[in-house]
């Protein structure tokens, strides 16, 4: 039972960061219909930025986190303007290939800059974990969970309580009508990609110190993000949040009780099973009937 509680606790922390990854991608995928292969690279970028600021330059860790999120958002905006905007009228296959190209370039740039050796990020938190009864949780992980929940809450507020969020929701429903209503679609797309990338970078920035930072860390992250989006339904933030926790839970329990080697397969199996039996996701409302 103790083991189960520990797994549960780990899952909750992991789930929070997975949720950030998922929310970012569901916004991009949902509003822009772009299969964003570069999403995982923004995740890695976030981690490497924290490494740069906190470890390499020796500056404040929390500053590193903030810089990572902002830099991630800016990089996302740049990618959108340079690569995606000219491709607006192209078909989905072509856009996907451009994003694959971006993924290759970004990952290998990271490999070139930092080398393939895993990097560790030292954090200002005490090493000794906090022990509550039968379970222990490290201060770092507690902080990560808190930060993730904060960002999830901020995303929710952004989408549901701000003008920008309203415009994004309108674009998700029907881009043409939104444009007729005066929404600046170009700007919304850039903003969406920037926000989504910022969230991915945040997830990477938070998990980088927990695990290690490697150039290929984004690959699995990207696929897991897709699993979460599919679980929760396109464009559905609460679905992505719940999906993130479900995936983390399935991974932890699967790794703990079935087999740790197949841990990463859980995400893929979820994708396959959900897509084949409920293609609209577990929580999606039915799309508008054409």
């Amino acid at each position: 039972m103790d083991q189960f509680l520990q797994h549960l606790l780990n899952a909750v922390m992991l789930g929070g960061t997975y949720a950030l990854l998922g929310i970012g991608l569901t916004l991009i995928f949902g509003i822009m219909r772009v299969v964003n292969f570069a999403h995982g690279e923004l995740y890695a970028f976030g981690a490497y930025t924290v490494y740069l600021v906190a470890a390499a330059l020796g500056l404040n860790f929390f500053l590193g986190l903030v810089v990572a999120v902002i830099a991630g958002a800016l990089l996302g905006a740049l990618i959108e303007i340079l690569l995606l905007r000219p491709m607006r009228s192209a078909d989905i296959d072509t856009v996907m290939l451009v994003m694959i190209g971006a993924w290759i370039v970004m990952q290998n740039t990271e490999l070139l800059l930092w080398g393939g050796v895993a990097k560790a990020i030292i954090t200002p938190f005490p090493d000794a974990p906090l022990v509550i009864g039968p379970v222990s949780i490290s201060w770092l992980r507690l902080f990560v969970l808190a930060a993730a929940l904060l960002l999830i809450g901020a995303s929710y507020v952004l989408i549901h309580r701000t003008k920008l969020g309203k415009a994004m929701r309108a674009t998700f429903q029907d881009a043409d009508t939104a444009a007729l209503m005066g929404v600046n679609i170009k700007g919304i797309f850039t903003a969406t990609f920037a926000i989504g990338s910022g969230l991915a970078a945040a997830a990477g920035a938070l998990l980088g110190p927990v695990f290690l930072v490697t150039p290929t860390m984004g690959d699995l992250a990207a696929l897991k993000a897709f699993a979460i989006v599919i679980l929760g339904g396109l464009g559905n933030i609460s679905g992505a949040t719940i999906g993130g926790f479900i995936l983390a839970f399935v991974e932890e329990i699967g790794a703990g009780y079935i087999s740790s080697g197949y841990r990463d397969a859980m995400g893929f199996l979820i994708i396959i099973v959900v897509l084949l039996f409920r293609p609209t996701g577990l929580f999606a409302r039915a799309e508008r009937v054409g």
Partner: protein
Amino acid sequence: MKRALPAFWLIILLTIPLWLQDQYILHILITTGIFIIAAMSLNLLLGYTGQLSLGHVAFFGIGAYASALTTLGFDVEVFGFRVVHQPWPAIVGLFVGMVAAGISGYVIGRLSFKVRGAYFVIVTISFAEVTRLIALNWVELTQGPLALTNIPPYTLAFPGLGDYTLWNKTAYYYLVVAVGLVAYLVIARLVGSRIGRAMIALKENETLAGSVGIDVTRYLVLAAVVSAAMAGGAGSLYAHYLKIIDPDIFLFIYTVTMVIMVITGGKGTLAGPIVGGIIFGFLPVILRPFAAPAVQWILYGGLMIAIVFVLPQGIVPALERSIANWASSTRKPARAMAAGNTESRGGP
């Protein structure tokens, strides 16, 4: 002139080992040739049938592993039953590899084609990754990361002439050329036929295709099966050439390599995968003295983006168009007269 061209290239291909001294270049030709076969198979599914399947390496790898395991033999326990297989001749492995890959193509195809578009892409990637993780973790069967080694080369039996075992590169080169030729002919025949037309119709307009009586699922799955079997054959060639394979063969990066070959060469054209394959097979060789692998990949990524932006149809169609333009410009006077005649055709 146009008809003579393929024959010309064929003769060049066949005579290469006679004058090429460099064994390393021959090695590159062989591996490039194998990847071109895989790229051609992907082109059938991606270029002609229009399905962006990004899990193609799964079929390549399944073919490789099935072929290797057939020839090496195995002894595993599955759900409490002991399954033992004695080694079979390597050449049988080629066919087992194709059949195993074809069956996977059927299963994965039937399941994946329940969805379309971006979801289809994600499902295909997921299947490939699951396959990789199985190869990595089912150590009893696949040796996991320790790899399957000592895979024997093919032995061809010529009745009356005795056996011939393909030990050296030259022999293997001709085998790859032969298989490549067969693969090319299969695809060429297929896309020019009624079946091929149905597949192309699915790429163009699935709804319209269904409304004139084309069974959408049936032809999508057929494309997947043929494509997979061919990739599996290429995988077997790869395994028996390198004589060692490990789960890295299932890495997504190999699918990306095949996709880059098809897209830059020209999807939906017969020559596209070949041109793309040659470029991306030899680019690493050319760049090796100047650039580290990471830099090379940055160049490939950049090149792919550039081609998608500038030549979205790929190199071969662009070449065909410029050749056609050049041909028509040299025949301009006669053409202008012909155009004048057709212009006066009346009626709305």
